[in-house]
């Protein structure tokens, strides 16, 4: 029986000729990731181990992104713990204030993740690197500790769902709409344990930033990972960003899929997930009532990349954010920030009345930099709209693309760019 793309990568990293769904394996890791929240716990676990060194100081990435620059004393203590660990073990890829970005935007940009890799991260959105054709998945703190110490992790080989992408999306439809559409269709546990493998000619119409957004939210459908074929766009991205050799794997022609779906991009509309689950989706034309907002957030590991900022700027250019709406723009990494500055995007945001923040997770997980009060409503390009995710338990988060978030910031209610004549 043939193997899926994910299964092939896992087999090679486990030193096996073939693997089948459900099989338990131990695989070599190319990268182990942690952030300022999860790394301190893993470091504490590692202290209990007799192994006192990391398996490879170049293959551990520690990214301070959730609560930095330190929002309070507790977060300062966490970062201090990680900083000391990074110094002691001479960790090459330690990213602190000034070099950091949101982990899942930063690592591909730094060239630390390439096609064919097996990557674990103590953060559920580690699945993002599937956009480049890597196997990557989120784990707990003990896994991260063990991964840092041994360079290995155990996995249950996943079965897969195939998404055949065809067609070309219309102007204001992006990767976010594709993944929200899929989650709305299969539900928040629709891909539990499984790989979401994206294939098809329509992928050529999706940029790398679109693909990062899609792979990022595989976890929101319960998926173990999301993965894309390695095409010219992916190769060009890796050649621009990475010095590491990449390896291209393809699914066998007779690989087995538990389910198959065809998504025609030309039929998709801007899609919004209503509170309090990412599966509660509606297309923009299905929204009949006015949904008045208090805040718009454009950023996060899902949608804080340069394409996202360009799209938001195209809409905000020469416009004003509605009175009484706070519009918060957060470039995901320092280099995206710099590029946005050079392209004049930051000027557009500031002139429109938005604020631009240093890279941080900030409001995405209700950390800081835009917490919601009771009864407030936010349109956000982030990935989770659970109860209380961005602040008060009685606040609401609507998930959408940067285009919708920017247009809504101008009108003060959930809106499509078409309402602005765009």
């Amino acid at each position, binding site marked *: 029986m043939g193997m899926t793309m994910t299964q092939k990568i896992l087999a090679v990293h486990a030193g096996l000729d073939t693997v089948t769904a459900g099989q338990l394996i131990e695989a070599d890791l190319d990268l182990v990731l942690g952030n300022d929240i999860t790394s301190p716990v893993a470091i504490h*676990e590692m202290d209990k181990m*007799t192994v006192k060194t990391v398996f490879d100081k170049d293959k551990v990435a520690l990214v301070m992104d959730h609560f930095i620059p330190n929002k309070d004393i507790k977060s300062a203590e966490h970062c201090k713990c990680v900083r000391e660990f990074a110094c002691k073990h001479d960790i090459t890829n330690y990213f602190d204030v000034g070099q950091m970005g949101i982990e899942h935007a930063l690592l591909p940009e730094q060239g630390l993740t390439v096609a064919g890799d097996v990557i674990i991260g103590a953060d559920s959105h580690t699945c993002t690197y599937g956009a480049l054709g890597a196997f990557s998945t*989120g784990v*707990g703190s*003990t*896994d991260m500790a*063990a991964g840092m110490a041994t360079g290995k992790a*155990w996995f249950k080989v996943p079965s897969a769902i195939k998404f055949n992408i065809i067609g070309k999306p219309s102007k204001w439809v992006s990767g976010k709409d594709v993944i929200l559409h899929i989650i709305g269709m299969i539900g928040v546990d629709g891909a539990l344990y499984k790989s979401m493998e994206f294939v098809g000619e329509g992928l050529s119409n999706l940029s790398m930033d679109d693909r990062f957004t899609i792979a990022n939210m595989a976890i929101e459908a319960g998926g173990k990972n999301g993965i894309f074929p390695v095409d010219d766009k992916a190769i060009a991205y890796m050649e621009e960003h990475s010095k590491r050799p990449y390896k291209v794997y393809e699914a066998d022609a007779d690989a087995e899929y538990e389910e198959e779906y065809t998504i025609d991009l030309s039929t998709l509309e801007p899609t919004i997930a209503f509170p309090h689950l990412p599966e509660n989706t509606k297309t923009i034309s299905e929204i009949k009532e006015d949904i008045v907002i208090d805040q718009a957030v454009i950023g996060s590991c899902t949608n804080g990349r340069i394409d996202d900022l360009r799209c938001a700027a195209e809409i905000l250019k020469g416009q004003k954010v509605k009175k009484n709406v706070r519009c918060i723009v957060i470039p995901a990494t320092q280099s995206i920030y710099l590029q946005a500055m050079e392209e004049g995007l930051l000027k557009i945001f500031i002139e429109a009345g938005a604020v631009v923040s240093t890279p941080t997770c900030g409001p995405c997980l209700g950390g800081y930099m835009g917490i919601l009060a009771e009864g407030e409503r936010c349109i956000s390009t982030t990935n989770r709209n659970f109860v209380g995710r961005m602040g008060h338990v009685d606040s609401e988060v609507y998930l959408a693309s940067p285009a919708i978030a920017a247009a809504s910031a101008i009108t003060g209610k959930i809106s499509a760019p078409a309402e602005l004549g765009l």
Partner: protein
Amino acid sequence: MNAKGTVFKYGDNVDTDVIIPARYLNSSDPAELATHCMEDIDKEFINKVNKGDIMVANKNFGCGSSREHAPIAIKAAGISCVIAETFARIFYRNSINIGLPIIECPEAAKAIESGDEVEIDFDSGVIKDITKGTSYQGQAFPPFMQKIIKAEGLVNYINNK
């Protein structure tokens, strides 16, 4: 390796909040966590459970927050194995990593009832319901995973290597 004991049976989507409520997470002492295990859906559990007993549940056991405290509480309560139709992914990992054996077996999970005497052979994956006289084939743990469980968790397993 074997496990044998009396079954405590639960339904679908038992989440980590009911396994160990967030209000007790200010402790990381396994014995203390165990005293609150399952209390929001089964107050009697902790009084009735004996060392070696077995937990059986239906779909998506351990969903929700990724807290490692959940499998720690179950294990410290004396449970020797959890059988379910399916487990939430991160709970599954965390259980193995702290040395709590768990087995997916939809047939067994559906048929076994509270109070049944059940015996599990981890080498073969065979689950025997002694009370009902039935047996089921669950997935056997591969050798390295058996070693993790024997070592009482991933940290010890790595230390022993």
